[in-house]
């Protein structure tokens, strides 16, 4: 149609056609809308093999395994190198992408016909329901993982309804983290603070002392939400741990709006009002606040064992690492900790081999040492196995002791950022930015996060 006739400039028609073209595309879309996209994953639970179907014996054949991991974390490089040294018939390809890209693409990667055998997966989301992950229960039985602390494996389980904490085992950690408070001991000495606080009350006294003498009490950043190490640390000391966990595991009816969480959030608001955080907190990202503490620009910082080696390098002997103190003296410690979680793809053709690798990371002395040396984390696994060696008096040694203490006290909780796939960027980050700059109250904070949670969890 529409022959150029020379009388009318053709672009006039072109412009008139634009809305019509869009309308046509929209109509086509509407017609297509009658058929649903996607495929039914079938839950992936009906065909779960039992222990007799799996092998703990490593094949003699040549196998090439692929791992999808995030950029900037060399642990998988070092571990696979050592594994291949011990088992030369098994070689690895490690593909890396940024954390954000990897987590956004993970479901599609896993659903593809050629998925990686092992993938870094911080939140399982709907991958279990969609049948994308391999159930590791048969291996749990075959390898005898029941000697490993269940509190460590619990967050890695998920049932058919997408509730974590029970059901099949779908992940394992390459290292298990623990969080706490780092204190600049040189500044502490100048302020007359002689040791780590033993209660939240003592911690508050130290914060006030620092503020009064012009030292920044807490080095934290919240451009990318990391102040939530502080927010959750405060909540952990007041909240009922099991109740908090049911929320993080998405159990039906679970709520974030609990008296304990409110109290914790109000405490953070109080600290914000008192000026205990950096003024430009919302423009500081993770690397900015880490390097600020490393430059000696504040008394405390809330972070995890993964930063121990870096802080040791920056501050030498002028830094110490300890668990967040409880509200009352003598109460048990509660600390965030999580597996550096990896999942096996349901479609992996080398499940026995990749699980052999995972088991090896938890049990082989060299592998456990590599986990500690590279990440500062505990390798997990059977607590009766000898711990790898950390330098005496180092932060890494403190971190290992803290891991053991938390394991013994049963005080580990997951990170609330892992509650759902979208809650961190969609709600916790923006609301915490408002909380730490005194724009909203602690009560509003927990209510808003809960509202987002209901919206997201209710969708499935």
């Amino acid at each position: 149609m529409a022959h150029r006739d020379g009388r009318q400039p053709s672009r006039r028609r072109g412009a008139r056609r634009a809305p019509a073209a869009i309308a046509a595309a929209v109509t086509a879309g509407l017609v297509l809308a009658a058929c649903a996209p996607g495929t039914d994953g079938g839950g992936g639970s009906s065909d779960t093999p039992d222990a007799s179907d799996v092998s703990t014996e490593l094949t003699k054949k040549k196998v090439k395994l692929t791992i999808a991991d995030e950029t900037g974390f060399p642990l998988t490089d070092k571990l696979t190198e050592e594994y291949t040294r011990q088992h030369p018939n098994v070689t690895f390809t490690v593909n890396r992408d940024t954390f954000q890209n990897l987590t956004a693409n993970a479901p599609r990667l896993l659903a593809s016909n050629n998925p990686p055998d092992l993938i870094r997966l911080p939140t399982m989301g709907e991958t279990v329901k969609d049948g994308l992950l391999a159930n590791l229960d048969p291996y749990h039985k075959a390898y005898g993982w029941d000697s490993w602390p269940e509190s460590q494996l619990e967050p890695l389980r998920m049932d058919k309804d997408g509730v974590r904490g029970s059901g099949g085992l779908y992940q394992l950690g390459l290292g298990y983290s623990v969080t706490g408070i780092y204190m600049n001991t040189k500044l502490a000495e100048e302020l007359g603070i002689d040791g780590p606080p033993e209660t939240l009350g003592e911690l508050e006294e130290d914060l006030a002392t620092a503020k009064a003498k012009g030292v920044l009490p807490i080095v934290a950043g919240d451009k990318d939400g990391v102040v939530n190490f502080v927010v959750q640390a405060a909540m952990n000391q007041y909240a009922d741990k099991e109740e908090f966990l049911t929320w993080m595991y998405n159990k039906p009816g679970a709520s974030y709006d609990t008296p304990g969480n409110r109290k914790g959030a109000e405490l953070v608001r109080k600290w914000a009002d008192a000026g205990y955080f950096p003024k430009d907190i919302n423009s500081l990202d993770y690397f900015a606040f880490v390097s600020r503490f490393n430059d000696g620009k504040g008394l405390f910082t809330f972070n995890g064992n993964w930063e121990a080696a870096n802080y040791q390098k920056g501050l030498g002997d002028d830094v110490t690492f300890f668990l967040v103190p409880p509200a009352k003296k003598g109460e048990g410690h509660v600390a965030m900790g999580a597996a550096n979680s990896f999942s096996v793809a349901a479609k992996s053709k080398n499940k026995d081999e990749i699980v052999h690798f995972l088991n090896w990371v938890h049990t082989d002395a060299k592998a456990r040492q590599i986990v500690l040396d590279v990440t500062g984390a505990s390798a997990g696994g059977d607590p009766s196995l000898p711990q790898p060696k950390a330098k005496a008096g180092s932060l890494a040694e403190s971190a290992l002791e803290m891991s053991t203490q938390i394991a013994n006290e049963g005080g580990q909780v997951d990170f609330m950022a892992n509650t759902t796939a979208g809650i961190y960027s969609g709600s916790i980050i923006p609301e915490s930015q408002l909380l730490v700059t005194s724009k909203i109250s602690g009560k509003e904070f927990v209510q808003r996060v809960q509202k987002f949670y209901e919206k997201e969890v209710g969708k499935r």
Partner: protein
Amino acid sequence: MTGVPAPVRRTGRAAPRKGPRRGEAHGWLLLLPALLAYVGFVVWPLIVGVQYSFYDWNGVGLATWVGFENYATVFTDPELLGAIGNALTLLVFFTVIPVGAGLVLATLIRSLRSGGFARASQTILFLPQVIPLAAAGIAWSWMYAQTGAVNEILEAVGLGWLARPWLADYGTALPAVGLIGSWVLTGLCTVLLLTGIGKIDPSLYEAARIDGAGWWREFFTITLPGLRQEIAVLVTLSMIAALSSFDIIYTSTQGGPGRETLVPAISIYRIGFTQSDVGLASAFGIVLMILVVALVLPIQRLARAGDR
């Protein structure tokens, strides 16, 4: 509805009117590669985007039909509406400021005649255009930081009381992000408008001057009407840039503090790829597209109104 104008040879003897003419067939053949790419990468995604927008779908599992629910969410969720509001505010910084500044700069450079200085200022003004937006966002977030260049300059000139973390301050975050866009787009506007001015018949200026017109008179009666086409193109481009802005904000504020700088593209990315709610993300994307078309089409009409 393909509406493809086929080249027609207007020779005296018309080919017989049976079946497609040879020229037409050739035309289609030549068009095929581009058409395939266009359908595959633009039309088809648009069609499936509309399809997805009527479903609750995580992108992998089975989707369930929800009718217009996703659209209802887009128009009722205060967070998503706020994002649209922010994008409209960005129009000031992405469109009004660059085009306005471009007009002034182009006129000034033109009055410099073609000296080395004029060429140098053209190049300098155009430079931001060659920097990737993501890099501009990162570089500016350093300059806007508490200890960054902006605050250092303010302190150096005695305006230290103004210093603040610009991207973390609730009042300044959105304008600060917007100004990054102004900085990037002003060069493009200036250069394009300069070439536009070059096309205006110099005798018009001469005539005006003989009639005793001043600078302002010249600007409003000759320069501005003569640049109508260029201005329409720039307004269209920069409006689309404002409404679909992603990279600058993603690398500078990620939508913060709170949701002060949250824009639709960031929301769509998060809803679709982090929350895996492909249906809602598609619906928001379609709404954004309709908004862009609704704002841009009148501009196109306006530019052509006085054409004849």
